[in-house]
């Protein structure tokens, strides 16, 4: 049985007087007109950052890891911090498109396409860090298990670092397939609206010959549902495995069993913050405020305050266990290296606490959740906080180890370490600018599917239905298969 209306109590997902054609027009307009001056400026800045990143990497590959300020105890500095940060950001897209699909959250349709694209670009950025951290990057293929002439000498399948190789590459592949299979119908729409021969040709190739046949849609629905079912445990597994890189070690501050849920919550937290930063700009610049509504922003802020609080509980649990375990190394790491404000890196711990735990609490207020400026500002704050979290975990646990004679000097990154990070920003935004220019940023077909169920102009018709007795409603609206 299909119930074809949605309660009046829910906000409409699409505002304004729309029909199917209007939806197509609205969403495809940004990719059918010449980009604005703002787009060119943004794209130029992104490419400049990317080129600086490429030069930083050229230095690193030519002269070695010594170009970075890593030292004898801090072997993982900015680069692994950035790796975990980007992977975390890359969790929101699949969460929105897969988990919310399984939970039948209709509001995902407005934001899923852009969030999935963001995921793919973030994972691309994340992958650069462990690969270049290897030093001899031209031997990176050694991490793959293949029969080789060195024995064959296999990779260690018991190592969390190898689990990471499998997790990240699987996650990237599956996210890409999920994103592109969802794009096919929309690319066909762009193709059929093409106004130049070149557009018709290129979008024709990209759309794989999609026609909208009922049988194809039936298979497409089945594919989306199963891919969502596969991606849901996948997205949870990826950051779990990233946390294993730390949790399976014997380093104080890393060797904790709460890492997997705590990392996953943090990943969703930072991912949603990045989605907010991007979509608040996109909806305004592209005039898509009827589709990415204040209601969407409100809902995502609820996820942010929830996951931020989960992360906060994890921080407090760690502090408690640092004391309760009576392990002096744990106690020293948590209560001196991290929580003591005047220890060398105490500033980063309190920066993290302020950005991640305290400031998102303003989202308990509905007024703040629905304020675009507050949301944009907070989304940046959250991402700064989540960067601090990974920095705190990595650096404060490494800079003083078990033996005081090998404690290292204060670590701060070199310009090439920072340049590499800026370069990934360049890569991310270059990709995102191209995506926004050439692909529909909202899933057109999916919006059409929800339009008559929860569009603003169709909602009043449901008032009558809601007043009807249930038996009659079921009789009129259910059809037996």
């Amino acid at each position, binding site marked *: 049985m299909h119930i074809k209306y949605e309660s009046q109590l829910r906000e409409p997902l699409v505002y304004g007087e729309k029909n199917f054609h209007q939806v197509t027009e609205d969403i495809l307009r940004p990719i059918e007109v010449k980009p604005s001056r703002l787009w060119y400026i943004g794209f130029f800045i992104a490419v400049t950052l990317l080129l600086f990143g490429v030069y930083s990497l050229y230095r690193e590959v030519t002269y070695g890891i010594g170009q970075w300020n890593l030292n004898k105890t801090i072997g993982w500095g900015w680069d692994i911090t950035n790796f975990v940060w980007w992977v975390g950001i890359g969790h929101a897209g699949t969460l929105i498109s897969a988990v919310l699909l399984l939970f039948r959250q209709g509001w995902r349709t407005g934001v899923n396409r852009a969030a999935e694209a963001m995921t793919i670009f973030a994972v691309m950025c994340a992958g650069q860090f462990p690969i270049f951290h290897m030093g001899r990057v031209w031997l990176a293929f050694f991490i793959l298990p293949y029969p080789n002439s060195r024995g064959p000498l296999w990779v260690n399948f018991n190592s969390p670092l190898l689990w990471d190789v499998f997790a990240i590459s699987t996650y990237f592949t599956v996210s890409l397939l999920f994103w592109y299979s969802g794009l096919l119908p929309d690319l066909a729409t762009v193709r059929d609206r093409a106004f130049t021969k070149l557009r018709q040709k290129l979008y024709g190739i990209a759309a794989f010959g999609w026609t909208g046949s009922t049988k194809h849609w*039936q298979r497409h629905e089945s594919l989306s549902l199963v891919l969502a079912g596969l991606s849901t445990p996948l997205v949870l597994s990826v950051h779990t495995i990233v946390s294993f890189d730390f949790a399976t070690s014997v380093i104080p501050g890393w060797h904790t069993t709460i890492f997997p849920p705590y990392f996953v919550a943090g990943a969703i937290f930072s991912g949603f913050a990045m989605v907010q930063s991007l979509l608040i700009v996109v909806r305004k610049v592209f005039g898509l405020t009827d589709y990415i509504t204040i209601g969407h922003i409100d809902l995502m802020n609820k996820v942010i305050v929830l996951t931020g609080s989960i992360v906060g509980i994890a921080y407090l649990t760690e502090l408690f266990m640092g004391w309760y375990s009576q392990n002096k190394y744990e106690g020293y790491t948590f209560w001196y290296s991290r929580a003591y404000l005047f220890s060398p890196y105490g500033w980063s711990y309190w920066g993290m606490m302020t950005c991640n735990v305290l400031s998102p609490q303003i989202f308990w207020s509905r007024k703040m959740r629905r304020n675009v400026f507050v949301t944009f500002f907070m989304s940046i704050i959250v991402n700064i906080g989540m960067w601090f979290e990974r920095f705190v975990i990595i650096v404060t646990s490494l800079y003083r180890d078990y033996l005081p004679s090998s404690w290292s000097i204060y670590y701060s990154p070199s310009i090439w370490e920072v340049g590499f990070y800026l370069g990934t920003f360049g890569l991310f935004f270059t990709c995102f600018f191209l995506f926004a220019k050439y692909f529909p940023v909202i899933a057109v077909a999916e919006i059409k599917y929800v339009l008559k169920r929860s569009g603003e102009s169709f909602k009043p018709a449901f008032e009558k239905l809601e007043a009807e007795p249930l038996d009659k409603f079921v009789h009129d609206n259910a059809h037996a298969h």
Partner: protein
Amino acid sequence: MAQKKFVVGCFDEEKVLFPAVKQVRTAGYKIKDVYTPFAVHGLDHALGMRETSLHTAGFIYGITGTATAVSTISWIFTKDWPLNIGGKPHFALPAWVPIIFELTVLFAAVGMVMTFCWLCQLAPGVKKHHFHKRATDDLFVMVIECTDKTNTDDLLAFLKSNGAIETDVQVAEEEWWFGTYDKDDDLYNTKQVAL
């Protein structure tokens, strides 16, 4: 390349389309397909299509992935190159769970997408006849296959009486072919969709 004759009827409302599909099928016509701009739930059943088995294929690909991971890793660590890691068992199944899981998901996802493309005959550069340009925009396009006995005039009138807003007769290739959309297709004309 077999050319066939088709009668095309376009609808702009789901609630007109469903009764029309029923009427056309009851009248004994063979509906080749209905092209829609989004997934219309229930239309596959209305057209008498069976459920897809794509998810079963996905399950088979998934267990293939599981089997590949378990057999490869256990062969490497117990037969080909057993490593003594602190005297721990060579067959360390718990430590392999992450990779076994990842390969299961990877095989299932890649396999399913490839099967989907194969079943629907979708690939870069594939071209199929478009019965109506607006089928990917805002129209539900019903295509009925004609036989020698079909009276097209009757059928066109029948479709109109069932709420079709546009109807025509087309002779078209029913399969796909390789090619691009640069030669024979008209470009998008905004007047066409003045609503």
